């Protein structure tokens, strides 16, 4: 039987893998953004688990700051999406080739 905390770490790993695969396979910018949020959330789970394991609150504070940074990222990211949509009329990542080498 796997011990309790290992189970949480494995769960976080699986969710991170799902998020990473989604960010690489999908085309819509907003779905890619949501996949990045899933990855952040998986990291949050790992940090909370470590924090509980070590009986310390450091991991929990990191989660708090990750949430704040994710909110900031969402605000700026969606503003950029709106600009992109205004400029190109689509949200398909394949169509954005300005910074592609």
């Amino acid at each position, binding site marked *: 039987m*796997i011990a*309790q*905390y*290992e*189970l*949480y*770490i*494995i*769960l976080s*790993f*699986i*969710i991170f*893998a*799902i998020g*990473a*695969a*989604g960010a*690489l*396979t999908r*085309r*819509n910018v*907003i*779905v890619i*953004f*949501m996949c990045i*949020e*899933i990855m952040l*959330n998986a990291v*949050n*789970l790992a940090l*909370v*688990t470590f924090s*509980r*394991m*070590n*009986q*310390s*609150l450091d991991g*929990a*504070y990191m989660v*708090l*700051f990750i*949430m*704040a*940074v*994710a*909110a*900031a990222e*969402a*605000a*700026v990211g*969606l*503003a950029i*999406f*709106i*600009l992109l*949509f205004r400029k190109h009329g689509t*949200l*398909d990542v*394949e169509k954005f080739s300005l910074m592609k080498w």
Partner: protein
Amino acid sequence: MEQTVMIIFGALTITTSAMVVCARNTIHSALWMVASFVSMACIFVLLHAPFLAILQIIVYAGAIMMFIIYAIMMLNIREEDATRGPVRKSKIFGIGLLIVLTLLLFVIGFNMSMTALKGPITLQVFEQFGNVAVFSRYLFTDYLLPFETVSVLLTAAVVGAVVLAKRD
């Protein structure tokens, strides 16, 4: 008992996260995402972090998803262009990455021996003083500088978003 609940919510989180990736319609993805965040919050409760669980629901499932759903509705994306073109390179990379990460998972899962430090914040401390009290005590002493820095970051982000999206 706790393990059973954990497995149930873990399976729920995995399923909903996979649905975010698989759903064709963007708004369906966003709604699955809310479900994923809520079940993740339940897992945080199991880890004795109810304050973080509430924050998870308010900030992620509330604020961030509201942003995303507003953006989807404003941009009026009905369907993802479901053109079944040739398989792209990035799709192969993505599936390959998933396989590699899963293999890595098994390597880690079978070799993991996690040793934990025994810090001062035990469950008894939580029971005695309450979760939020303990949390805020350290937040406003040891972590005061990062806390204030994050508030500056949030302000800057909001101003930046307004400036970016402003029609000129």
